């Protein structure tokens, strides 16, 4: 992984406050856990039926019955609990998730999220994404700032099928930390070595810049 991505993930880890219940989506969000101290008080939730996710185990130490929603062989910690899929999403929909971190294909200036379908190219199904995006108390996105072709993922409006409307509060990218505000995207921090102007150029919507140079990560 690039150094910029690594710093993005480390920065996103600081979004997790002590005592939170957190669901980390498949992909880059899952890696956030590597940046939490071993005694950090947090409860990680995986939608296939576990609170209190412990470290990922190598195959030779894996429990064949213990995976996370991405299929990784994880472990438990003291105080873990198992439950069925209905109970798992009861937690999500009833507001017991303080935070979820998700990946994205597109995020719009009003916080719409598209991350599950590219018509004609990619449609594996929505899984648990809609409920996480719509119902976690705070939804943040981890994504590269642009796609492989260099096209911005932060747009005035999403062009792909939505996962949920107006759900995203903050986006962590390999260039910046950007909040969704009532007036649209607002630059909060930049990656060290990236200027606010570079971030604005890579964003397909107006970007509100802070008056002073923003902090870096």
């Amino acid at each position, binding site marked *: 992984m690039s150094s910029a991505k690594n710093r993005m993930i480390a920065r996103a880890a600081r979004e997790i406050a*002590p*005592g939170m*219940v957190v669901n980390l989506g498949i992909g880059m969000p899952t890696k956030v*856990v590597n940046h*939490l101290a*071993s*005694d*950090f*008080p*947090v*409860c*990680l*939730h995986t939608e296939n039926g*576990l*609170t*209190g*996710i*412990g470290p990922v185990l190598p195959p030779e130490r894996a429990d064949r019955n213990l995976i996370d929603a991405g299929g990784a062989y994880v472990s*438990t*910690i*003291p*105080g*873990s*609990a*198992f*439950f069925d899929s*209905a*109970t798992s*999403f*009861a*937690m*999500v*929909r*009833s*507001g*017991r998730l303080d935070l979820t971190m998700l990946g994205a294909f597109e995020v719009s200036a009003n916080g719409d999220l598209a991350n599950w379908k590219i018509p004609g190219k990619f449609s594996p199904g929505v899984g648990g994404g809609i409920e996480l995006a719509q*119902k976690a108390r705070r939804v943040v996105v981890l994504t590269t700032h642009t796609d492989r072709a260099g096209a911005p993922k932060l747009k005035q409006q999403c062009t792909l099928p939505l996962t949920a409307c107006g759900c995203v509060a903050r986006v962590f990218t390999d260039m910046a930390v950007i909040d969704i505000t009532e007036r649209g995207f607002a630059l909060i921090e930049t990656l060290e070595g990236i200027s606010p102007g570079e971030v604005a150029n890579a964003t397909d919507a107006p970007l509100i810049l802070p008056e002073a140079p923003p902090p870096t990560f």
Partner: protein
Amino acid sequence: MKLPDKRCRIDQAIATIRDGDTVMIGGFGVPGTPMTLIRALVAHGARDLTIIKNDANEPGMGVDHLLRNGQVSRLITTHLGLNSHAIGLMNAGDIRVEFNAQGILAERIRAGGSGICAVLSDIGIGTELAQGKQVVEMAGKPHLVEPALRADVALIHADRADPFGNLAYVATARNFNPLMAMAARCVIAEAETVVPLGALAADAVHTAGVFVDHLAELKELSGDYAVVQR
């Protein structure tokens, strides 16, 4: 990662309850009724409460203390047959009572605890319990809309707990407790025993700790919990 500790003092947890709050209380008869939390709510004195509970216990027991103390204005329940005092209050108009079919009350609470807005059911169609309810047609048949129930606070009795608030119930003391423990903004649980983190097996947890906000260990078990002599 380690899991947060939710142990607290009962009076401090109960102190967050305000006049006019809706309070769910677990239990079916004595088993599963959080007798100690109820006594603390009596001592606290919050008034104009809406209580959601399967039954009103028996005269001089459990939730009846709240009724006698004049703290309850409304009761959402299924059956008051063992509490003639509660029936008297209802008949005198001192408390408003809403009767639900027992399993529908359970489903409405579970829906509230599951972020579901309502369930559609044919239970009670053709009876007076259907009166005044919104009706939705599905496949040409009428169904009653049973709206989800949520509360400001839920009072829960568990047999065992760990400091994160994972709970396990015993025998028929389970009843409405796991449902109500999902359905309130603030869930306060009393447990007969609190074991160290990890001592409650992850497969044996009945209510996951993420649903629980405050946990109190019962230092001793009062006579309120004893076998009822009839």
